[in-house]
Protein backbone atom coordinates (compact mmCIF):
# COMPACT_ATOMS: atom_id res chain seq x y z
CA UNK A 1 0.00 0.00 0.00
CA UNK A 2 2.72 2.42 0.95
CA UNK A 3 5.27 0.93 -1.42
CA UNK A 4 4.01 3.00 -4.28
CA UNK A 5 5.28 6.12 -2.57
CA UNK A 6 8.63 4.62 -1.62
CA UNK A 7 9.08 3.15 -5.10
CA UNK A 8 9.52 6.67 -6.32
CA UNK A 9 12.57 7.10 -4.06
CA UNK A 10 15.53 8.27 -6.13
CA UNK A 11 17.92 5.50 -5.12
CA UNK A 12 18.97 3.99 -8.43
CA UNK A 13 20.24 0.74 -6.91
CA UNK A 14 16.97 -0.17 -5.21
CA UNK A 15 14.72 0.40 -8.20
CA UNK A 16 15.42 -2.81 -10.16
CA UNK A 17 15.21 -4.85 -6.97
CA UNK A 18 11.89 -3.45 -5.85
CA UNK A 19 10.19 -3.47 -9.21
CA UNK A 20 9.71 -7.25 -9.47
CA UNK A 21 8.38 -7.53 -5.95
CA UNK A 22 5.82 -4.84 -6.72
CA UNK A 23 4.91 -6.66 -9.83
CA UNK A 24 4.58 -9.91 -7.98
CA UNK A 25 2.37 -8.30 -5.41
CA UNK A 26 0.15 -6.87 -8.08
CA UNK A 27 -0.07 -10.27 -9.72
CA UNK A 28 -1.08 -11.81 -6.41
CA UNK A 29 -3.86 -9.25 -5.99
CA UNK A 30 -4.92 -9.82 -9.58
CA UNK A 31 -5.22 -13.57 -9.05
CA UNK A 32 -7.20 -13.00 -5.87
CA UNK A 33 -9.61 -10.71 -7.72
CA UNK A 34 -9.90 -13.20 -10.51
CA UNK A 35 -10.32 -16.30 -8.36
CA UNK A 36 -14.09 -16.33 -7.75
CA UNK A 37 -14.88 -15.75 -11.39
CA UNK A 38 -12.06 -17.97 -12.64
CA UNK A 39 -12.86 -21.01 -10.51
CA UNK A 40 -16.53 -20.80 -11.46
CA UNK A 41 -15.58 -20.24 -15.09
CA UNK A 42 -13.52 -23.42 -15.26
CA UNK A 43 -16.06 -25.47 -13.33
CA UNK A 44 -19.26 -24.18 -14.92
CA UNK A 45 -18.32 -22.90 -18.35
CA UNK A 46 -15.10 -24.22 -19.81
CA UNK A 47 -15.34 -27.64 -18.16
CA UNK A 48 -18.85 -28.35 -19.44
CA UNK A 49 -17.95 -27.12 -22.93
CA UNK A 50 -15.13 -29.66 -23.15
CA UNK A 51 -17.24 -32.33 -21.46
CA UNK A 52 -20.07 -31.85 -23.94
CA UNK A 53 -17.83 -33.08 -26.76
CA UNK A 54 -16.47 -35.96 -24.66
CA UNK A 55 -19.94 -37.16 -23.69
CA UNK A 56 -20.92 -37.33 -27.35
CA UNK A 57 -18.51 -40.28 -27.68
CA UNK A 58 -20.18 -42.30 -24.96
CA UNK A 59 -23.33 -44.28 -24.60
CA UNK A 60 -24.49 -42.34 -21.59
CA UNK A 61 -27.88 -43.19 -20.16
CA UNK A 62 -29.24 -40.98 -17.37
CA UNK A 63 -29.48 -44.09 -15.22
CA UNK A 64 -27.11 -47.03 -15.58
CA UNK A 65 -23.76 -47.92 -17.10
CA UNK A 66 -21.96 -45.63 -19.52
CA UNK A 67 -19.49 -46.87 -22.09
CA UNK A 68 -17.22 -45.46 -24.75
CA UNK A 69 -18.70 -45.97 -28.21
CA UNK A 70 -16.50 -43.81 -30.44
CA UNK A 71 -18.39 -42.17 -33.28
CA UNK A 72 -21.41 -44.41 -32.84
CA UNK A 73 -23.73 -41.62 -31.63
CA UNK A 74 -22.86 -39.48 -34.64
CA UNK A 75 -23.28 -42.41 -37.01
CA UNK A 76 -26.68 -43.05 -35.46
CA UNK A 77 -28.02 -39.55 -35.86
CA UNK A 78 -26.53 -39.13 -39.34
CA UNK A 79 -27.65 -42.43 -40.80
CA UNK A 80 -30.33 -44.32 -38.92
CA UNK A 81 -32.13 -41.66 -36.92
CA UNK A 82 -35.53 -41.05 -38.49
CA UNK A 83 -35.92 -37.43 -37.42
CA UNK A 84 -32.51 -35.86 -36.77
CA UNK A 85 -32.24 -34.44 -40.30
CA UNK A 86 -35.81 -33.21 -40.09
CA UNK A 87 -34.92 -31.19 -37.00
CA UNK A 88 -31.84 -29.78 -38.74
CA UNK A 89 -34.05 -28.82 -41.69
CA UNK A 90 -36.67 -27.27 -39.44
CA UNK A 91 -34.03 -25.25 -37.58
CA UNK A 92 -32.46 -24.03 -40.83
CA UNK A 93 -35.89 -23.12 -42.19
CA UNK A 94 -36.62 -21.18 -39.02
CA UNK A 95 -33.29 -19.34 -39.23
CA UNK A 96 -33.72 -18.53 -42.93
CA UNK A 97 -37.18 -17.09 -42.32
CA UNK A 98 -36.55 -15.46 -38.96
CA UNK A 99 -33.24 -13.65 -39.36
CA UNK A 100 -33.99 -11.60 -42.51
CA UNK A 101 -37.51 -10.74 -41.35
CA UNK A 102 -36.16 -9.72 -37.98
CA UNK A 103 -33.67 -7.39 -39.69
CA UNK A 104 -36.24 -5.84 -42.00
CA UNK A 105 -38.67 -5.21 -39.14
CA UNK A 106 -36.02 -3.98 -36.72
CA UNK A 107 -34.32 -1.65 -39.18
CA UNK A 108 -37.58 -0.45 -40.69
CA UNK A 109 -39.05 0.50 -37.33
CA UNK A 110 -35.76 1.93 -36.07
CA UNK A 111 -35.67 4.24 -39.12
CA UNK A 112 -39.28 5.15 -38.68
CA UNK A 113 -39.04 5.90 -34.96
CA UNK A 114 -35.56 7.36 -34.90
CA UNK A 115 -35.43 10.82 -36.33
CA UNK A 116 -38.24 13.11 -35.37
CA UNK A 117 -41.11 11.35 -33.75
CA UNK A 118 -42.26 12.66 -30.43
CA UNK A 119 -42.36 10.06 -27.69
CA UNK A 120 -39.90 7.82 -29.48
CA UNK A 121 -38.57 6.57 -26.14
CA UNK A 122 -42.00 5.19 -25.33
CA UNK A 123 -42.43 3.60 -28.76
CA UNK A 124 -39.07 1.90 -28.53
CA UNK A 125 -39.84 0.67 -25.04
CA UNK A 126 -43.21 -0.81 -25.98
CA UNK A 127 -41.88 -2.59 -29.06
CA UNK A 128 -39.13 -3.97 -26.85
CA UNK A 129 -41.45 -5.23 -24.11
CA UNK A 130 -42.06 -8.79 -25.41
CA UNK A 131 -38.30 -9.29 -25.50
CA UNK A 132 -37.99 -9.02 -21.73
CA UNK A 133 -41.13 -10.86 -20.63
CA UNK A 134 -41.00 -14.66 -20.20
CA UNK A 135 -41.05 -16.44 -23.57
CA UNK A 136 -43.28 -19.07 -22.05
CA UNK A 137 -45.90 -16.46 -21.13
CA UNK A 138 -45.62 -14.87 -24.59
CA UNK A 139 -45.96 -18.22 -26.32
CA UNK A 140 -48.96 -19.13 -24.17
CA UNK A 141 -50.72 -15.93 -25.23
CA UNK A 142 -50.06 -16.76 -28.86
CA UNK A 143 -51.33 -20.26 -28.33
CA UNK A 144 -54.56 -18.77 -27.04
CA UNK A 145 -54.79 -16.52 -30.09
CA UNK A 146 -54.16 -19.20 -32.74
CA UNK A 147 -56.46 -21.86 -31.27
CA UNK A 148 -59.03 -23.09 -33.78
CA UNK A 149 -61.67 -21.28 -31.70
CA UNK A 150 -59.39 -18.38 -30.80
CA UNK A 151 -59.64 -14.76 -31.80
CA UNK A 152 -57.39 -15.09 -34.88
CA UNK A 153 -59.82 -17.65 -36.26
CA UNK A 154 -62.67 -15.19 -35.72
CA UNK A 155 -60.74 -12.45 -37.52
CA UNK A 156 -59.92 -14.87 -40.34
CA UNK A 157 -63.60 -15.71 -40.72
CA UNK A 158 -64.40 -12.03 -41.33
CA UNK A 159 -62.20 -12.36 -44.39
CA UNK A 160 -63.96 -15.49 -45.51
CA UNK A 161 -61.39 -17.95 -44.18
CA UNK A 162 -63.17 -20.80 -42.45
CA UNK A 163 -61.46 -23.55 -40.48
CA UNK A 164 -58.53 -21.38 -39.45
CA UNK A 165 -56.08 -23.68 -37.68
CA UNK A 166 -52.43 -22.86 -38.42
CA UNK A 167 -51.11 -25.37 -35.90
CA UNK A 168 -52.89 -28.14 -37.79
CA UNK A 169 -50.42 -28.20 -40.69
CA UNK A 170 -46.64 -27.99 -40.89
CA UNK A 171 -46.39 -24.80 -42.92
CA UNK A 172 -48.91 -23.02 -40.75
CA UNK A 173 -47.27 -24.18 -37.55
CA UNK A 174 -43.83 -23.04 -38.72
CA UNK A 175 -45.33 -19.71 -39.79
CA UNK A 176 -46.87 -19.32 -36.33
CA UNK A 177 -43.55 -20.10 -34.63
CA UNK A 178 -41.71 -17.60 -36.86
CA UNK A 179 -44.36 -14.92 -36.39
CA UNK A 180 -44.40 -15.35 -32.63
CA UNK A 181 -40.59 -15.30 -32.49
CA UNK A 182 -40.45 -12.13 -34.57
CA UNK A 183 -43.01 -10.45 -32.37
CA UNK A 184 -41.04 -11.52 -29.33
CA UNK A 185 -37.54 -10.84 -30.51
CA UNK A 186 -37.07 -8.04 -33.02
CA UNK A 187 -37.12 -5.34 -30.31
CA UNK A 188 -33.52 -6.06 -29.35
CA UNK A 189 -32.20 -5.34 -32.81
CA UNK A 190 -34.50 -2.36 -33.14
CA UNK A 191 -32.89 -0.82 -30.07
CA UNK A 192 -29.39 -1.62 -31.30
CA UNK A 193 -30.15 -0.05 -34.69
CA UNK A 194 -31.88 2.94 -33.09
CA UNK A 195 -28.84 3.68 -30.99
CA UNK A 196 -26.64 3.24 -34.05
CA UNK A 197 -28.78 5.66 -36.06
CA UNK A 198 -28.72 8.22 -33.25
CA UNK A 199 -24.94 8.23 -33.26
CA UNK A 200 -24.54 9.02 -36.98
CA UNK A 201 -23.31 12.63 -37.11
CA UNK A 202 -25.56 15.15 -38.88
CA UNK A 203 -22.79 16.64 -40.95
CA UNK A 204 -22.49 13.45 -42.98
CA UNK A 205 -26.08 13.81 -44.13
CA UNK A 206 -25.61 17.51 -44.76
CA UNK A 207 -22.53 16.86 -46.86
CA UNK A 208 -24.34 14.15 -48.79
CA UNK A 209 -27.29 16.49 -49.43
CA UNK A 210 -24.99 19.23 -50.66
CA UNK A 211 -23.48 16.73 -53.06
CA UNK A 212 -26.99 16.16 -54.36
CA UNK A 213 -27.66 12.74 -52.86
CA UNK A 214 -31.36 11.95 -52.55
CA UNK A 215 -32.89 10.03 -49.65
CA UNK A 216 -32.32 6.49 -50.98
CA UNK A 217 -28.73 7.35 -51.92
CA UNK A 218 -28.12 8.86 -48.52
CA UNK A 219 -29.51 5.71 -46.92
CA UNK A 220 -27.28 3.53 -49.09
CA UNK A 221 -24.08 5.57 -48.87
CA UNK A 222 -24.31 7.11 -45.40
CA UNK A 223 -26.74 5.25 -43.16
CA UNK A 224 -25.86 1.68 -44.10
CA UNK A 225 -22.06 2.03 -43.94
CA UNK A 226 -22.26 3.96 -40.68
CA UNK A 227 -24.61 1.35 -39.27
CA UNK A 228 -22.59 -1.61 -40.52
CA UNK A 229 -20.86 -2.39 -37.20
CA UNK A 230 -24.27 -2.57 -35.50
CA UNK A 231 -25.64 -4.64 -38.36
CA UNK A 232 -22.71 -7.03 -38.20
CA UNK A 233 -22.96 -7.45 -34.46
CA UNK A 234 -26.70 -8.00 -34.64
CA UNK A 235 -26.29 -10.49 -37.48
CA UNK A 236 -23.82 -12.59 -35.51
CA UNK A 237 -25.92 -12.56 -32.34
CA UNK A 238 -29.25 -13.11 -34.05
CA UNK A 239 -27.95 -16.06 -36.04
CA UNK A 240 -26.48 -17.70 -32.96
CA UNK A 241 -29.62 -17.26 -30.91
CA UNK A 242 -31.99 -18.28 -33.68
CA UNK A 243 -30.23 -21.64 -33.99
CA UNK A 244 -31.06 -22.15 -30.32
CA UNK A 245 -34.81 -21.72 -30.75
CA UNK A 246 -36.58 -23.91 -28.22
CA UNK A 247 -39.24 -22.39 -25.98
CA UNK A 248 -41.40 -20.98 -28.79
CA UNK A 249 -42.08 -24.29 -30.57
CA UNK A 250 -42.06 -26.22 -27.29
CA UNK A 251 -44.92 -24.18 -25.85
CA UNK A 252 -46.69 -23.03 -29.01
CA UNK A 253 -46.76 -26.16 -31.14
CA UNK A 254 -45.20 -28.88 -29.02
CA UNK A 255 -42.91 -29.46 -32.01
CA UNK A 256 -45.83 -30.55 -34.12
CA UNK A 257 -47.80 -31.34 -36.08
CA UNK A 258 -45.77 -34.54 -36.21
CA UNK A 259 -42.23 -33.27 -36.04
CA UNK A 260 -42.98 -30.31 -38.31
CA UNK A 261 -41.64 -27.69 -35.92
CA UNK A 262 -39.26 -29.78 -33.82
CA UNK A 263 -35.98 -27.86 -33.69
CA UNK A 264 -32.50 -29.14 -32.92
CA UNK A 265 -32.54 -27.94 -29.31
CA UNK A 266 -35.98 -29.41 -28.83
CA UNK A 267 -34.71 -32.72 -30.21
CA UNK A 268 -31.67 -32.46 -27.92
CA UNK A 269 -34.06 -32.05 -24.99
CA UNK A 270 -36.30 -34.93 -26.02
CA UNK A 271 -33.42 -37.26 -26.76
CA UNK A 272 -31.58 -36.43 -23.54
CA UNK A 273 -34.29 -35.87 -20.99
CA UNK A 274 -37.31 -37.72 -22.25
CA UNK A 275 -35.51 -40.70 -23.79
CA UNK A 276 -32.69 -40.42 -21.22
CA UNK A 277 -30.01 -40.86 -23.88
CA UNK A 278 -27.46 -38.20 -22.97
CA UNK A 279 -24.74 -39.48 -25.31
CA UNK A 280 -26.81 -39.04 -28.45
CA UNK A 281 -28.20 -35.75 -27.16
CA UNK A 282 -24.62 -34.56 -26.75
CA UNK A 283 -23.88 -35.56 -30.32
CA UNK A 284 -26.82 -33.36 -31.40
CA UNK A 285 -25.41 -30.52 -29.26
CA UNK A 286 -21.99 -30.97 -30.85
CA UNK A 287 -23.43 -30.80 -34.36
CA UNK A 288 -25.42 -27.70 -33.39
CA UNK A 289 -22.29 -26.08 -32.05
CA UNK A 290 -20.29 -27.00 -35.15
CA UNK A 291 -22.93 -25.37 -37.36
CA UNK A 292 -22.98 -22.21 -35.24
CA UNK A 293 -19.19 -22.03 -35.11
CA UNK A 294 -18.91 -22.42 -38.89
CA UNK A 295 -21.49 -19.76 -39.64
CA UNK A 296 -19.96 -17.35 -37.12
CA UNK A 297 -16.51 -17.92 -38.63
CA UNK A 298 -17.85 -17.23 -42.11
CA UNK A 299 -19.47 -14.03 -40.86
CA UNK A 300 -16.25 -12.83 -39.30
CA UNK A 301 -14.31 -13.63 -42.47
CA UNK A 302 -16.92 -11.86 -44.56
CA UNK A 303 -17.13 -8.73 -42.41
CA UNK A 304 -14.07 -7.13 -44.02
CA UNK A 305 -16.05 -6.82 -47.22
CA UNK A 306 -18.89 -4.74 -45.82
CA UNK A 307 -18.33 -3.61 -42.25
CA UNK A 308 -16.83 -0.14 -41.86
CA UNK A 309 -15.18 0.78 -38.61
CA UNK A 310 -14.17 4.39 -38.09
Amino acid sequence: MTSSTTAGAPTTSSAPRRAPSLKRREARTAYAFLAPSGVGFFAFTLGPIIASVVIAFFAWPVFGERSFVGFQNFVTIFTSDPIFWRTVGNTLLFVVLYVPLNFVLALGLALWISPRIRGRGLYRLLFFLPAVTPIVANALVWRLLVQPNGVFADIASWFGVEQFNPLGNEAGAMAAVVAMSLWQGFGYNMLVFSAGLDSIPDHLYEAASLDGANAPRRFWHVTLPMLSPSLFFAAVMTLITSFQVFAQPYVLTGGGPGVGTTTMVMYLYQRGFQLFDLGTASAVATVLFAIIAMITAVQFLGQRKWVHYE
Partner: protein
Amino acid sequence: MSSATAHRPDTTRAIVQPADLHDEYVSRPASARKRARLAREVTSQVLLTLVLLLFLMPFIWMVATALKPGNEVFASPPSLFGSEILWSNFADAWTFVPFGRFMWNGLVVSVLGTVLVCVTSVFAAYSFARMRFRGRSALFALYLVTLLVPQEVVVIPMFIFMQELGWQNSYQALILPWAFTAFGTFLLRQFFLTVPRELEEAATVDGASRLRILLTIIVPIAKPAIGVLAVFTFINYWNSFLWPLIIISTQDMATVPIGLNSFLGQQGNQWQLLMAASTISMLPTALIVIFLQRHLVKGIALSGLGGR
Protein backbone atom coordinates in the same frame (compact mmCIF):
# COMPACT_ATOMS: atom_id res chain seq x y z
CA MET B 1 -41.35 6.02 -44.81
CA SER B 2 -39.85 7.62 -47.88
CA SER B 3 -41.67 10.84 -47.08
CA ALA B 4 -40.39 10.71 -43.54
CA THR B 5 -36.80 10.52 -44.70
CA ALA B 6 -37.10 12.95 -47.59
CA HIS B 7 -35.68 15.85 -45.62
CA ARG B 8 -33.20 13.88 -43.66
CA PRO B 9 -30.60 16.58 -42.94
CA ASP B 10 -33.09 18.62 -40.96
CA THR B 11 -34.68 15.69 -39.26
CA THR B 12 -31.60 14.64 -37.37
CA ARG B 13 -31.05 18.18 -36.24
CA ALA B 14 -34.61 18.34 -34.99
CA ILE B 15 -33.66 15.97 -32.22
CA VAL B 16 -31.31 18.41 -30.60
CA GLN B 17 -32.75 21.72 -31.64
CA PRO B 18 -35.97 23.54 -30.80
CA ALA B 19 -38.46 23.76 -33.61
CA ASP B 20 -38.12 27.51 -34.19
CA LEU B 21 -34.35 27.38 -34.50
CA HIS B 22 -34.80 24.57 -36.92
CA ASP B 23 -36.62 26.81 -39.37
CA GLU B 24 -33.73 29.18 -39.79
CA TYR B 25 -31.96 26.56 -41.80
CA VAL B 26 -34.49 26.36 -44.58
CA SER B 27 -35.31 28.78 -47.33
CA ARG B 28 -39.02 28.06 -47.70
CA PRO B 29 -41.52 30.31 -45.88
CA ALA B 30 -41.61 29.29 -42.27
CA SER B 31 -45.39 28.85 -42.08
CA ALA B 32 -45.63 26.47 -45.05
CA ARG B 33 -42.68 24.54 -43.74
CA LYS B 34 -44.21 24.27 -40.32
CA ARG B 35 -47.54 23.10 -41.67
CA ALA B 36 -45.93 20.41 -43.80
CA ARG B 37 -43.89 19.26 -40.85
CA LEU B 38 -46.90 19.15 -38.57
CA ALA B 39 -48.88 17.16 -41.14
CA ARG B 40 -46.06 14.66 -41.45
CA GLU B 41 -45.71 14.40 -37.71
CA VAL B 42 -49.43 13.79 -37.22
CA THR B 43 -49.58 11.16 -39.97
CA SER B 44 -46.57 9.41 -38.56
CA GLN B 45 -47.94 9.45 -35.04
CA VAL B 46 -51.32 8.07 -36.08
CA LEU B 47 -49.80 5.31 -38.21
CA LEU B 48 -47.26 4.39 -35.58
CA THR B 49 -49.90 4.24 -32.87
CA LEU B 50 -51.96 1.90 -35.03
CA VAL B 51 -48.98 -0.35 -35.66
CA LEU B 52 -48.18 -0.32 -31.97
CA LEU B 53 -51.74 -1.25 -30.97
CA LEU B 54 -51.66 -4.14 -33.41
CA PHE B 55 -48.29 -5.14 -32.02
CA LEU B 56 -49.48 -5.02 -28.42
CA MET B 57 -52.68 -6.88 -29.27
CA PRO B 58 -51.45 -10.17 -27.76
CA PHE B 59 -50.74 -8.42 -24.46
CA ILE B 60 -54.06 -6.59 -24.56
CA TRP B 61 -55.87 -9.84 -25.27
CA MET B 62 -53.94 -11.54 -22.48
CA VAL B 63 -55.05 -9.00 -19.87
CA ALA B 64 -58.61 -8.94 -21.22
CA THR B 65 -58.82 -12.74 -21.07
CA ALA B 66 -57.42 -12.68 -17.54
CA LEU B 67 -60.46 -10.65 -16.52
CA LYS B 68 -63.13 -12.78 -18.21
CA PRO B 69 -65.36 -15.48 -16.79
CA GLY B 70 -63.92 -18.86 -17.80
CA ASN B 71 -66.81 -19.83 -20.08
CA GLU B 72 -66.44 -16.64 -22.15
CA VAL B 73 -62.77 -17.07 -23.12
CA PHE B 74 -63.66 -18.49 -26.53
CA ALA B 75 -66.93 -16.63 -26.96
CA SER B 76 -67.92 -16.01 -30.55
CA PRO B 77 -68.05 -13.30 -31.75
CA PRO B 78 -65.04 -12.35 -29.66
CA SER B 79 -65.21 -9.34 -27.39
CA LEU B 80 -62.46 -7.64 -25.48
CA PHE B 81 -64.45 -7.56 -22.25
CA GLY B 82 -66.51 -10.36 -20.82
CA SER B 83 -69.97 -9.94 -19.30
CA GLU B 84 -68.22 -8.97 -16.08
CA ILE B 85 -64.71 -7.98 -15.02
CA LEU B 86 -63.42 -10.73 -12.76
CA TRP B 87 -60.47 -9.42 -10.78
CA SER B 88 -60.81 -12.55 -8.71
CA ASN B 89 -59.16 -14.50 -11.53
CA PHE B 90 -55.85 -13.08 -10.37
CA ALA B 91 -56.40 -14.35 -6.85
CA ASP B 92 -57.64 -17.69 -8.22
CA ALA B 93 -54.57 -18.08 -10.42
CA TRP B 94 -52.44 -17.52 -7.34
CA THR B 95 -54.07 -20.43 -5.53
CA PHE B 96 -55.01 -22.72 -8.44
CA VAL B 97 -51.33 -23.65 -8.59
CA PRO B 98 -48.76 -22.56 -6.02
CA PHE B 99 -48.01 -19.45 -8.03
CA GLY B 100 -46.70 -17.50 -5.06
CA ARG B 101 -44.15 -20.25 -4.61
CA PHE B 102 -43.08 -19.98 -8.28
CA MET B 103 -42.68 -16.23 -7.91
CA TRP B 104 -40.66 -16.64 -4.73
CA ASN B 105 -38.40 -19.26 -6.32
CA GLY B 106 -37.93 -17.03 -9.34
CA LEU B 107 -37.03 -14.04 -7.18
CA VAL B 108 -34.57 -15.99 -5.02
CA VAL B 109 -32.81 -17.44 -8.05
CA SER B 110 -32.81 -14.21 -10.06
CA VAL B 111 -31.65 -11.95 -7.22
CA LEU B 112 -28.94 -14.25 -5.90
CA GLY B 113 -27.77 -15.05 -9.41
CA THR B 114 -27.61 -11.38 -10.31
CA VAL B 115 -25.62 -10.46 -7.21
CA LEU B 116 -23.18 -13.30 -7.82
CA VAL B 117 -22.70 -12.39 -11.48
CA CYS B 118 -22.13 -8.71 -10.71
CA VAL B 119 -19.67 -9.26 -7.86
CA THR B 120 -17.52 -11.86 -9.62
CA SER B 121 -17.61 -9.90 -12.87
CA VAL B 122 -16.54 -6.64 -11.23
CA PHE B 123 -13.47 -8.21 -9.66
CA ALA B 124 -12.47 -10.27 -12.68
CA ALA B 125 -13.07 -7.40 -15.07
CA TYR B 126 -10.94 -5.04 -13.01
CA SER B 127 -8.20 -7.59 -12.88
CA PHE B 128 -8.25 -8.00 -16.66
CA ALA B 129 -8.56 -4.30 -17.35
CA ARG B 130 -5.98 -2.85 -15.02
CA MET B 131 -3.57 -5.39 -13.59
CA ARG B 132 -0.66 -7.31 -14.98
CA PHE B 133 -0.22 -10.98 -14.32
CA ARG B 134 1.16 -14.00 -16.08
CA GLY B 135 -1.34 -15.61 -18.42
CA ARG B 136 -3.65 -12.64 -18.58
CA SER B 137 -4.10 -12.51 -22.33
CA ALA B 138 -4.39 -16.28 -22.68
CA LEU B 139 -7.02 -16.46 -19.96
CA PHE B 140 -8.94 -13.55 -21.39
CA ALA B 141 -8.89 -15.19 -24.80
CA LEU B 142 -10.38 -18.33 -23.21
CA TYR B 143 -13.15 -16.21 -21.68
CA LEU B 144 -13.85 -14.63 -25.05
CA VAL B 145 -14.04 -17.92 -26.92
CA THR B 146 -16.72 -19.24 -24.58
CA LEU B 147 -18.94 -16.26 -25.38
CA LEU B 148 -19.82 -17.90 -28.66
CA VAL B 149 -20.90 -21.19 -27.11
CA PRO B 150 -24.67 -21.30 -26.64
CA GLN B 151 -26.06 -22.36 -23.28
CA GLU B 152 -28.00 -25.13 -24.97
CA VAL B 153 -24.78 -26.91 -25.90
CA VAL B 154 -23.67 -27.35 -22.29
CA VAL B 155 -26.93 -28.31 -20.59
CA ILE B 156 -26.10 -32.02 -20.83
CA PRO B 157 -22.69 -31.95 -19.12
CA MET B 158 -24.15 -29.44 -16.68
CA PHE B 159 -26.97 -31.86 -15.87
CA ILE B 160 -24.49 -34.69 -15.30
CA PHE B 161 -22.32 -32.42 -13.17
CA MET B 162 -25.30 -31.46 -11.00
CA GLN B 163 -26.27 -35.11 -10.74
CA GLU B 164 -22.77 -35.99 -9.53
CA LEU B 165 -22.96 -33.25 -6.92
CA GLY B 166 -26.44 -34.37 -5.90
CA TRP B 167 -27.77 -30.91 -6.61
CA GLN B 168 -30.71 -31.67 -8.89
CA ASN B 169 -33.84 -29.79 -8.00
CA SER B 170 -32.10 -27.13 -5.91
CA TYR B 171 -31.54 -23.40 -5.91
CA GLN B 172 -27.81 -23.81 -6.40
CA ALA B 173 -28.45 -25.89 -9.51
CA LEU B 174 -30.63 -23.11 -10.89
CA ILE B 175 -28.14 -20.36 -10.02
CA LEU B 176 -24.54 -21.53 -10.24
CA PRO B 177 -24.27 -22.90 -13.79
CA TRP B 178 -25.02 -19.49 -15.31
CA ALA B 179 -23.30 -17.28 -12.76
CA PHE B 180 -19.80 -17.52 -14.19
CA THR B 181 -20.25 -17.00 -17.88
CA ALA B 182 -17.69 -14.71 -19.42
CA PHE B 183 -20.18 -12.15 -20.59
CA GLY B 184 -20.32 -9.96 -17.47
CA THR B 185 -16.55 -9.91 -17.16
CA PHE B 186 -16.18 -8.97 -20.79
CA LEU B 187 -18.82 -6.24 -20.63
CA LEU B 188 -17.40 -4.59 -17.50
CA ARG B 189 -13.81 -4.88 -18.69
CA GLN B 190 -14.75 -2.93 -21.80
CA PHE B 191 -16.23 -0.25 -19.59
CA PHE B 192 -13.35 -0.16 -17.09
CA LEU B 193 -10.91 0.37 -19.95
CA THR B 194 -12.62 3.66 -20.72
CA VAL B 195 -12.06 5.02 -17.20
CA PRO B 196 -9.04 7.36 -17.25
CA ARG B 197 -6.06 5.96 -15.39
CA GLU B 198 -5.27 9.34 -13.87
CA LEU B 199 -8.21 8.93 -11.51
CA GLU B 200 -6.60 5.88 -9.96
CA GLU B 201 -3.08 7.21 -10.00
CA ALA B 202 -3.97 10.00 -7.63
CA ALA B 203 -5.45 7.47 -5.22
CA THR B 204 -2.42 5.22 -5.57
CA VAL B 205 -0.14 8.08 -4.62
CA ASP B 206 -2.30 8.59 -1.56
CA GLY B 207 -1.66 4.99 -0.65
CA ALA B 208 -5.03 3.44 -1.44
CA SER B 209 -5.10 -0.31 -1.99
CA ARG B 210 -6.34 -1.91 -5.19
CA LEU B 211 -9.47 -3.07 -3.45
CA ARG B 212 -10.17 0.42 -2.21
CA ILE B 213 -9.56 1.95 -5.62
CA LEU B 214 -11.91 -0.56 -7.19
CA LEU B 215 -14.69 -0.04 -4.67
CA THR B 216 -14.48 3.71 -4.18
CA ILE B 217 -13.43 4.96 -7.62
CA ILE B 218 -14.12 2.43 -10.35
CA VAL B 219 -17.40 0.92 -9.17
CA PRO B 220 -19.16 4.28 -8.66
CA ILE B 221 -18.11 5.40 -12.13
CA ALA B 222 -19.16 2.09 -13.63
CA LYS B 223 -22.59 2.04 -11.99
CA PRO B 224 -24.47 2.41 -15.31
CA ALA B 225 -22.60 -0.52 -16.85
CA ILE B 226 -23.02 -2.66 -13.74
CA GLY B 227 -26.69 -1.70 -13.69
CA VAL B 228 -27.19 -2.85 -17.25
CA LEU B 229 -25.45 -6.12 -16.49
CA ALA B 230 -27.62 -6.56 -13.39
CA VAL B 231 -30.88 -5.90 -15.24
CA PHE B 232 -30.11 -8.28 -18.07
CA THR B 233 -28.83 -10.97 -15.76
CA PHE B 234 -32.02 -10.71 -13.74
CA ILE B 235 -34.15 -10.91 -16.87
CA ASN B 236 -32.25 -13.94 -18.13
CA TYR B 237 -32.62 -15.80 -14.87
CA TRP B 238 -36.28 -14.85 -14.53
CA ASN B 239 -37.21 -15.95 -18.04
CA SER B 240 -34.95 -18.98 -18.27
CA PHE B 241 -36.84 -22.08 -19.39
CA LEU B 242 -34.77 -24.96 -20.80
CA TRP B 243 -32.44 -25.40 -17.84
CA PRO B 244 -35.12 -25.31 -15.12
CA LEU B 245 -37.17 -27.70 -17.26
CA ILE B 246 -34.24 -30.12 -17.14
CA ILE B 247 -33.08 -29.74 -13.57
CA ILE B 248 -36.31 -29.12 -11.64
CA SER B 249 -38.50 -32.11 -10.89
CA THR B 250 -40.92 -30.96 -8.20
CA GLN B 251 -43.51 -28.23 -8.21
CA ASP B 252 -42.22 -26.57 -5.07
CA MET B 253 -38.91 -25.80 -6.79
CA ALA B 254 -40.41 -24.56 -10.05
CA THR B 255 -39.62 -21.08 -11.31
CA VAL B 256 -42.25 -18.95 -13.04
CA PRO B 257 -41.87 -20.21 -16.65
CA ILE B 258 -41.91 -23.83 -15.46
CA GLY B 259 -44.93 -23.10 -13.31
CA LEU B 260 -46.76 -21.49 -16.23
CA ASN B 261 -45.96 -24.42 -18.47
CA SER B 262 -47.18 -26.92 -15.90
CA PHE B 263 -50.42 -24.94 -15.68
CA LEU B 264 -51.17 -25.90 -19.24
CA GLY B 265 -53.27 -29.00 -19.51
CA GLN B 266 -54.11 -29.12 -15.83
CA GLN B 267 -57.82 -29.78 -15.47
CA GLY B 268 -58.63 -28.67 -19.00
CA ASN B 269 -56.81 -25.40 -19.62
CA GLN B 270 -58.24 -22.70 -17.45
CA TRP B 271 -57.20 -20.03 -19.93
CA GLN B 272 -58.48 -17.11 -17.89
CA LEU B 273 -56.34 -18.21 -14.92
CA LEU B 274 -53.38 -19.00 -17.14
CA MET B 275 -53.56 -15.52 -18.67
CA ALA B 276 -53.85 -13.95 -15.23
CA ALA B 277 -50.73 -15.85 -14.18
CA SER B 278 -48.93 -14.85 -17.41
CA THR B 279 -49.75 -11.22 -16.70
CA ILE B 280 -48.32 -11.47 -13.19
CA SER B 281 -45.23 -13.27 -14.49
CA MET B 282 -44.39 -10.35 -16.78
CA LEU B 283 -44.59 -7.67 -14.12
CA PRO B 284 -41.14 -7.87 -12.51
CA THR B 285 -39.09 -7.62 -15.70
CA ALA B 286 -41.51 -5.26 -17.45
CA LEU B 287 -41.45 -2.85 -14.51
CA ILE B 288 -37.67 -2.92 -14.28
CA VAL B 289 -37.37 -2.14 -17.96
CA ILE B 290 -40.00 0.61 -17.84
CA PHE B 291 -38.29 2.36 -14.93
CA LEU B 292 -34.80 2.02 -16.32
CA GLN B 293 -35.57 2.43 -19.99
CA ARG B 294 -33.28 5.34 -20.74
CA HIS B 295 -30.24 3.64 -19.22
CA LEU B 296 -31.09 0.37 -20.88
CA VAL B 297 -31.24 1.75 -24.39
CA LYS B 298 -27.81 3.25 -23.87
CA GLY B 299 -26.55 0.08 -22.27
CA ILE B 300 -27.81 -2.14 -25.06
CA ALA B 301 -26.17 0.09 -27.62
CA LEU B 302 -22.83 0.18 -25.83
CA SER B 303 -22.58 -3.33 -24.56
CA GLY B 304 -24.05 -5.41 -27.29
CA LEU B 305 -26.77 -7.11 -25.37
CA GLY B 306 -28.83 -7.09 -28.51
CA GLY B 307 -29.38 -9.52 -31.29
CA ARG B 308 -31.90 -11.93 -29.89
